[in-house]
């Protein structure tokens, strides 16, 4: 039952806001809907904790420990982001970059975007999964081009075309999957249900599945932002409004990776070799290294953190590629940590850019002078994302790197290099933004820093203490992914 709330609330929210969005309190309504979604997600999670994995809605939906924590995460970040976007968008309106109509569009497609992601996460049908991913893309395209500036249009266009193509390839992969499944399960609706596929994965035709996986990996991989398919990502993150950047790199990338993983499970079952894993490790490493070197040359703060998202996604993909209980566990942990931390950073960055009136890092200086909390938020967030303990990102990087050193030593020099370069670049650029002298003015509205510190607090806590039931989720999920 919760599932329908979970999916219904954002949908109705989208429609409602599309109709009434011009009202003065649209941001609050948006936040309310997100809150409701969060509650529904909480209920669902609670039920899963109680009763374990289950099929819902006549087998159309399947919730297990892998996606339930992503659902919870998505609902949570969506809610905090809506909180953040409230003052942020107000200020944007003050600055005259947006008007009511655009805000209406923003709010309704925000809700729809969230709904689409939740659908993608919960559905049991690989086809529907594809549909939902596409829907999410479409919803965000409009969000990216919200400012209607040439740059934002260009970004949105690239985003649309590249992801569209990618997702089309994913569809081809899905067709091949269905093609293979149909032999075993017979044609009709059930042949695309993941649970059924998972049940018979050993009998699926290897050659077809390996082809299918290539298409799925390239397709969904484009959305994950794996190099060299990542080209859309920095533009879309840099040019869209900051809340959108936050949910893009905090949530959408996760969902895409979720899709990849679902298919990887099947392929591994069918092939019985490590082909899928190797491909993912290759992509992961390449993304990590390339992103690290690209970070070094950034001047735009949001663009820089977009590249850092690519880097982290690469790391996670690499970990999933390695496989095994520890690595999968680490990857899942890293997914959580990355979305929390990165969205927090984007919140802080959003206010900082508004303050300075530019996204160029050379224009942002000495934040802790004029408002210390913002400055410390950005500094701590950066430190956290760079994998410095006691923040949780370190916990997962610790597991990933030590495992890599033990399983695949050849990869560690690249990791060492990439992490070093990324650290030098990001920290070297953020430090002067936070420290030093400044003459920047204060903000007209009180920036919403509660989400920032809420996220960072969570990340800190998870770095030092992971609640047992959460750990159990991770373990089960890791196991389910072939740990």
């Amino acid at each position, binding site marked *: 039952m919760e599932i329908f709330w979970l999916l219904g609330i954002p949908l109705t929210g989208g429609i409602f806001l599309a109709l009434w969005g011009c009202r003065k309190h649209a941001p609050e309504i948006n936040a309310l809907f997100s809150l409701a979604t969060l509650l529904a997600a909480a209920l669902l999670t609670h039920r899963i904790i109680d009763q374990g994995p289950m099929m819902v809605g006549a087998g159309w939906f399947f919730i297990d420990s892998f996606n339930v924590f992503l659902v919870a995460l998505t609902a949570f970040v969506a809610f905090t982001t809506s909180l953040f976007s409230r003052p942020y968008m107000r200020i944007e309106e003050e600055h005259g970059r947006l008007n009511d109509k655009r805000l209406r569009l923003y709010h309704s497609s925000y809700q729809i975007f969230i709904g689409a992601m939740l659908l993608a996460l919960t559905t049991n049908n690989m086809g529907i999964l594809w*549909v939902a991913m596409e829907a999410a893309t479409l919803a965000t395209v409009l969000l990216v081009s919200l400012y209607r500036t040439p740059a934002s249009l260009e970004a949105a266009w690239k985003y649309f075309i590249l992801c569209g193509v990618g997702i089309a390839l994913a569809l*081809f992969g899905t067709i091949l999957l269905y*093609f293979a499944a149909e*032999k075993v399960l017979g044609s009709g*609706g059930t042949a695309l249900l993941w649970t059924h596929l998972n049940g018979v994965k050993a009998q699926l035709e290897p050659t077809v599945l390996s082809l299918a996986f290539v298409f799925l990996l390239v397709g969904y991989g484009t959305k994950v932002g794996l190099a060299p398919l990542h080209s859309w990502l*920095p533009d879309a993150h840099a040019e869209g409004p900051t809340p959108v950047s936050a949910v893009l790199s905090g949530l959408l990338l996760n969902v895409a990776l979720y899709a990849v993983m679902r298919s990887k499970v099947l392929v591994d079952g069918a092939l019985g070799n490590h082909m899928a894993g190797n491909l993912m490790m290759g992509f992961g490493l390449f993304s990590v290294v390339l992103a690290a070197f690209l970070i070094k040359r950034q001047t735009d703060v949001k663009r820089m953190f977009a590249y850092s998202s690519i880097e982290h996604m690469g790391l996670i993909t690499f970990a999933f590629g390695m496989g095994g209980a520890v690595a999968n566990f680490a990857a899942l942990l890293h997914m959580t940590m990355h979305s929390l931390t990165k969205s927090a950073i984007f919140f802080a960055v959003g206010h900082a850019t508004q303050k300075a009136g530019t996204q160029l890092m050379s224009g942002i200086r000495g934040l802790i002078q004029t408002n210390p909390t913002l400055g410390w938020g950005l500094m701590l967030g950066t430190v956290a994302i760079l994998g410095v303990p006691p923040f949780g990102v370190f916990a997962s990087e610790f597991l990933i790197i030590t495992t890599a050193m033990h399983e695949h030593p050849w990869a560690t020099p690249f990791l060492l290099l990439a992490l070093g370069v990324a650290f030098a670049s990001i920290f070297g650029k953020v430090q002067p933004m936070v420290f030093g002298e400044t003459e920047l003015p204060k903000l007209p509205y009180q920036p919403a820093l509660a989400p920032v510190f809420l996220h960072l607090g969570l990340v800190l806590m998870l770095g030092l203490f992971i609640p047992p039931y959460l750990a159990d989720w991770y373990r089960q999920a890791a196991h389910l992914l072939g740990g």
Partner: protein
Amino acid sequence: MTLTYHLQIVNLLAALLLLISFAMLSQRRIAGLITLFAWQGAALAASTALIAWSTNQHHLYYSAALTLVLKVIAMPWYFFRIVRKLDVDRDVEPMINIPTTMLIGIVLVIFAFNLALPISELSGTVTRSTLGIALACVLLAFLMMITRSKAIPQVIGFLAMENGLFFAATSATYGMPLVVELGVALDVLVGVFVLGIFFFQIRETFDSLDLKHMEKLKEK
């Protein structure tokens, strides 16, 4: 096995699809492109219907109808409207010149066939051999997207790709489950709609649909 002649027709249509894809690759004028796209849609619908009839899979009729409505009537009409509104008929010289593109296309087709061969062996459907063609269409559409330097042709390429996918679905697997197909169709529809909005926005910001205006975002 000897094919019953309506299945031969299906194969014929498949060949036609491939041909149209090539034609699209070589077509310079946007209007022509749209027409070709419509024809491709028609061929697709026809083949789907045929397969539905020959293997009496009823839900395929729906998808045939859907194709007909969307890709033969709605979209081309919509595109023509846009083209007329923005009067952007002429496409400039594509990135790679036509003969080269053709050659690459041929290579792709061969590649696709080789790729599809082992799969077709497994296919239980009567129309298995068409899978290679479908894949070829997809790749050709991709190539077209790469070579075209204006917005609309690129989008048409994108849609042609979807056609290819659709053909793959019908020919190799007698179509996906209906829900999925409806979803896909819906997405395509929305996508095209969104694109329409886009064209106008792009147009009013860059006052042309030429993609070379949209190369600002890069690493300095």
